């Protein structure tokens, strides 16, 4: 098996100029990753300082370290930090989910939005608010309802129903895909059909809703990172991290799959198993994000495409980059939304659609020219 060393008489221990060039290109992109990480941290700290209650950088740092205990501490820990962390975690989750659905299905159109997961969640939330009659918007989601006697109450029920709706979309897609032999095209088509179905379901529910319920349904569907408690953030953060680790362990397999299904199998990848497990995990993250934060459109599509422009097709780099860019975009959009409106009332989902669609088109046009 010693293919080159013995039989061709060459030494195989010293990488030559090509391998060094390759190493340098990896190092350059790792440096870019560190730079973007730094940018995210700076943006996050700056985002804590801006808002209607004025805080200096010093106040923020003192509050974060626990030295400051007054109003600044409450503003930082209870209002701004949950929102900022939520934006980063949700952006990270959507970037991850979008990237791996695109890679697993080998389709650049795949994302939680095009697979009907978001629409499923919205339909579930509408069902909870209108049919079950739960979900006053004044309550925080999981934490607030924990004190109540009936756990299936308030925002918790809405979140749960949204999650079930998203998972229903996921399960239907996976079953259909399995019946059709997991052809990537059929998965996207099934997603489009499901989106239409869930959207009309939501409209039907809205038709029978009272004005207040209607407002609640519409308000829920706006993607918004301001409604999370630390408890939800822990859940979302841990799940996203675990899923990211799973895909990092499979990064070579994802690269092999990018080369082609047959090739991946010949390179030792269990393609069917990877697809099934991967899709379940990716949609789980997307479903959780949507259940907690509503519909944040376009991010799952946009972040992976930007990451590919920056680092190419290697999943060893793509996975961290897509997460990081998702976090950066969502935090940036949310902070911009807070600054634009002032009181922090503009939901980030509106902005991601507004900014995301033109940016996506721009990337597409650039791609054609290149």
């Amino acid at each position: 098996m010693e293919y080159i060393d013995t039989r061709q008489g060459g030494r195989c221990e010293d990488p030559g100029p090509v391998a060094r060039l390759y190493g340098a290109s990896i190092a350059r992109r790792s440096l870019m990753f560190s730079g973007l990480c730094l940018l995210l941290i700076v943006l996050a700290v700056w985002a804590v300082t801006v808002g209607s209650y004025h805080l200096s950088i010093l106040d923020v740092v003192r509050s974060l370290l626990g030295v400051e205990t007054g109003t600044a501490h409450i503003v930082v820990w209870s209002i701004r930090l949950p929102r900022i962390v939520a934006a980063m975690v949700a952006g990270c989750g959507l970037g991850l989910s979008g990237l791996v659905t695109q890679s697993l299905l080998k389709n650049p159109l795949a994302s939680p939005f095009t697979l009907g997961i978001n629409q499923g969640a919205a339909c579930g939330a509408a069902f909870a608010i209108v049919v079950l009659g739960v979900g006053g918007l004044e309550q925080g989601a999981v934490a607030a309802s924990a004190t109540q006697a009936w756990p299936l109450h308030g925002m918790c029920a809405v979140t749960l129903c949204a999650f079930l709706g998203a998972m229903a979309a996921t399960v239907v897609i996976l079953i259909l895909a399995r019946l059709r032999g997991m052809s990537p095209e059929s998965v996207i088509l099934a997603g489009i059909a499901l989106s239409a179905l869930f959207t009309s379901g939501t409209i039907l529910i809205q038709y029978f809703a009272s004005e207040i319920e209607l407002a609640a349904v519409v308000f829920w569907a706006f993607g918004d990172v301001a409604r999370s408690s630390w408890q939800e953030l822990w859940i979302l953060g841990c799940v996203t991290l675990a899923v990211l680790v799973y895909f990092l362990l499979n990064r070579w397999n994802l690269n092999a799959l990018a080369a082609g299904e047959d090739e991946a199998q010949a390179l030792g990848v269990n393609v069917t198993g990877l697809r099934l497990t991967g899709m379940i995990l990716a949609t789980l993250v997307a479903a959780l994000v949507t259940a907690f934060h509503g519909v944040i459109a376009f991010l799952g599509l946009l972040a992976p495409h930007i990451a590919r422009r920056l680092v190419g097709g290697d999943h060893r780099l793509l996975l961290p980059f897509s997460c990081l860019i998702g976090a950066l975009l969502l935090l940036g959009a949310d902070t911009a939304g807070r600054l634009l409106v002032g009181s922090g009332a503009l939901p980030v989902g509106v902005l991601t659609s507004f900014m995301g669609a033109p940016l996506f088109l721009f990337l597409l046009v650039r791609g054609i020219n290149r």
Partner: protein
Amino acid sequence: MTFYVNNLCFDYGSAPVFNEVGFELPPGSVCGVLGVNGAGKSTLLKCLIRILDPSRGEVRLNGLDLRSMPRRKLSRYAAYVPQSTGAQLLSVFDTVLLGRKPYITWAPSRRDLAMVEKILTTMHLDHLALRPAGSLSGGELQKVTIARALAQEPELLLMDEPTSSLDLKNQIAVMDRISDVVVSQGLTAVVSMHDLNLAFRHADFFLLLNNGAMHAFCPREEVTPEMIREVYGIPVALERVRGHTVVVPLDSHQPREAMRPSLVKTG
């Protein structure tokens, strides 16, 4: 080191694709798989490396049962070169490095990197190393795919029409390269081919598939014009030209006279 296939059958549900294929190849030999379009050449290759699951039969390399081996282990023994690969964003270096995947647990070792470099250099692909594989020409991409297969350090090479997208010069260059590797390292190669002349030039054994059955398996020297007529449905003559066997299709038509370009009067 022999590659032994016995009684291999495959069907898509009720429709059999091929039945009872069996042959044995010594190390250092190239076997050309030939047959008309749809004869099951690609399917046979995919069955040998378990991209498709044969319904029955035996596939052994040096006595090792390839059909029950874990996939990752199989990929250290056998490499597959598909007919065509889609456009991809992975760089050429990364694509060839994928061939080391069966050996990599976490990160590629220095030896992996050095080996990729060596293969790229010998195949004259080193200047393309950092280009996305999708931006290469069809011929270059095919060479990259072959380079990836060689990086797997396989003992068995399965290639599905490796020269289909290459021009004449590259066809010869790629097949010569494959022959060199096969002979110098004692590999076994099973190559499906369309071009009979190329097969006569590079294959030591011929496996002729016809209507879902193995029509013949024999050394190159024993291939007769009748066999080719039975498989392809047209009479041929086998001629020797400067030491190479060439296939001349014979039909009722005589060669057409060469046309002379007629002058077009302008003004």
